[in-house]
């Protein structure tokens, strides 16, 4: 690690807690870059989906399959979870461990509800409506794009659980603050991806 010169550490003192160490700073920068690469990953999946959207083979089309109800529910739950996660970050700024943990736990619960709704949607489509993943290219693209998002959410849930435990053990320190801050970024990122899914998959699917 490069030794931080005096002026550098002076500058850091006035920063939010997660930026007060050089290491925290480095990791947050790296995390932004990671999210950029994850965006490329999702872009590839979106491109694939949009190309295959019309290739329905013997299966149903998007219009036949999608229903607005469950999709709206998922969207609202996820957007609200992003809001509660943001409230958590505000508590982080106030160095309020309890408040941060509270909002993170609320976020976790909403995340789990979202996952439950999504799994149920998959179940309805693939079993009840008889449109499983291996029926057509359109369905493959659909399940894998949404499944990748869902897998990200699942990973996020495990991550936030770890962070909540560490917050309970150690309180808000530069290290736990950094982790909580990064998890917050990640959660908002997944929200943004969902908004694209909502538009590119569901809205266009039901309209066009």
């Amino acid at each position, binding site marked *: *690690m490069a030794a931080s010169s005096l002026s550098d550490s002076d500058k850091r003192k006035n920063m939010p807690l997660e930026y007060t160490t050089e290491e925290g*700073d480095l990791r947050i920068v*790296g995390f932004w870059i990671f999210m950029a*690469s994850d965006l490329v990953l999702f872009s590839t999946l979106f491109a694939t989906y949009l190309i295959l959207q019309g290739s329905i083979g013997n299966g149903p089309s998007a219009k036949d399959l999608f229903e607005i109800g469950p999709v709206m529910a998922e969207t609202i739950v996820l957007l609200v979870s992003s809001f509660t996660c943001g409230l958590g970050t505000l508590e982080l700024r106030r160095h309020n461990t309890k408040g941060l943990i509270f909002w993170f736990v609320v976020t976790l619960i909403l995340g789990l509800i979202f996952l439950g709704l999504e799994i149920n949607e998959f179940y309805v489509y693939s079993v009840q409506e008889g449109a499983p993943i*291996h029926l057509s290219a359109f369905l493959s*693209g659909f*399940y894998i794009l949404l499944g990748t998002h869902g897998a990200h959410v699942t990973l996020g849930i495990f991550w936030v659980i770890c962070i909540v435990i560490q917050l309970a053990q150690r309180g808000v320190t530069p290290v736990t603050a950094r982790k909580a801050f990064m998890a917050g970024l990640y959660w908002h990122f997944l929200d943004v991806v969902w908004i694209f899914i909502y538009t590119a998959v569901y809205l266009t699917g039901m309209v066009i």
Partner: protein
Amino acid sequence: MIENIKAFLGDFFVTGDPMIYGADVSIALASIAIVVTLTYFKKWRWLWDEWLTTVDHKKIGIMYIIAALLMLFRGGVDAILMRTQLALPNMNFLDADHYNQIFTTHGTIMIIFVAMPFIFGLMNIAVPLQIGARDVAYPYLNALSFWLFFFGAMLFNLSFVIGGSPDAGWTAYAPYAGPELNPSSVGQNYYYIGVQISGIGSLMTGINFLVTIAKMRAPGMTLFKMPMFTWSILITSLIIIFAFPTFTVTLALGLFDHLLGTHFFTIGGGGSPMLWANLFWFWGHPEVYIVLLPVFGIFSEVIATFAHKTLFGYATMVCSMVAISILSFLTWLHHFFTMGNTAPVNAFFSLSTMLIAIPTGVKIFNWLFTLNKGRIEFTTPMLWALAFIPNFTIGGVTGVMLAMAPADYQYHNSMFLIAHFHSTLIAGTVFGVFCGLHYWWPKMFGYLLNEKLGKWSFWVFMISFNVCFMPMYFLGLMGMTRRMYTYPAGLGWGPVNFIITIGAFGMGVGFVIMAWNIVWSAIKGKRDTTGDPWGGRTLEWSIPSPAPEYNFAHIPKVTTRDAFAAMKEDKKRGREQKPKPFEPIHMPNNSGIPFIMSALFFVAGFGFVFKWYWMGIPGLIGVAICMIARSFVYDDHHHIPTDEIERTERATGRLS
């Protein structure tokens, strides 16, 4: 029961071929030899503490290079097998199946498990030293990258003896690679999963080095004072970050077609085989620049050092690399001009491809102008660099020929193409990594490689390279296509092929001489006591060889380009700064998690190759447990006390 077990084992292990049994025996013998040696010399603890758990960028770099050299050996044996089969018409050395498997493993190994890790190794060693840093931004992640690459490579290589190798080419085009035409899946799954595991490591390396270079340069080193190799790695990292996620998805979708029965690239169910080609090359073309830009950086360093001049046209060097990196994302379609695109589409990609020749040409001229009126010293690294210029230019010119879409209908998938990309990959990447290997060897190990043996290996390899690949262009023009396992007599191809095979063996000899040089020099090589054996210009030469654990006892202050050359100049004029007292140095702790986690990835991957979910899923759960365990590690660094720094510096003669 017994019959069942027999049938299973017969499928599981590749049987019925003496070559494979030979491989089985040699793998078993080599493993036993390693275990016995380690046990006999009581070196297990040492291996674990010093290497398997290390997070030191220099050691990780050395491990990358060792692995890359081993893989180069395997890929080279594949090449020699192919060339033996093609030496004469109607040869019966390999059958068609075998030939397919061998060109597939050769291509995949050479690109993914030789070129990439060799470059990662050299950049691990040189970049932190060039920018005056004590490590990379994320040392732990760096170790994880290495072990993911390593276990990915091991998984891929296992296919040779267990289950069977992939045979759909390194490009794994659908639908041939897909489940419809490749129903056994095993070989193809090895490809998807082995390459995937190491690809994740590559992506993390890209992020790691981008942040390292962006944030950890020594005070005073602005972007435009960075050494050219560091510049090349910065740009390469950006390409990695934007190209590799696409590949991650592509491989995953290919795997899902086999495991889940999805219809991404299939013929039936509305799948699109062309989608594979597009996605693959959207990563694949940037990939060739990922393995090329870093060696441009190496050549820039070496040419400036041994011409004893600053690099000519620094800013244009940087600009042309930036231009290349952008254009590299706009040319992917030139790999399938012949696959039914409309004329305007072909025209666009034809032009974008030819455009790349301009910044590349600028670089070539910059190197030539650096040499102009320089005091050229013909060391081994310099020979590789000088040979690169004309040989690579031939590859570039034939590349422009291939870029003309209408003409490509003639060249496409012929031996002309094979000759073209070997001219760029060997005269570019391989010459480059050999050049870097000789150049930085003293910094890695504290002694020099022997110059005489080095020159022998250079001349033998370089001449053989031309004997092998120059005639191959003409063979392509005579009509021989690639991936052709044999050919009838009477087409006039026989003699040319025979010459090519002689060249291939010659390159093998060159490689053996180099290996011998490594062994010889380890025993008798000249020690590098100064830390600056070549009269270097950049900061890595300002510290002892091999570099101490913490690299720089004091972080250097940089005022100009070629920082170390300027420091030496200052010293001559007596304007040296007084040494300050040492301060304790903050260093990251070793960790066993990267090794264990990657091994679990290997286990999971092996399970998925055979669709053994009972093995794959617990493997992945193990990976998750490792990640959670790491999240709870807080005690992850230590400080090197000042008296230890003082002792180390004194031992290398830096303190009187």
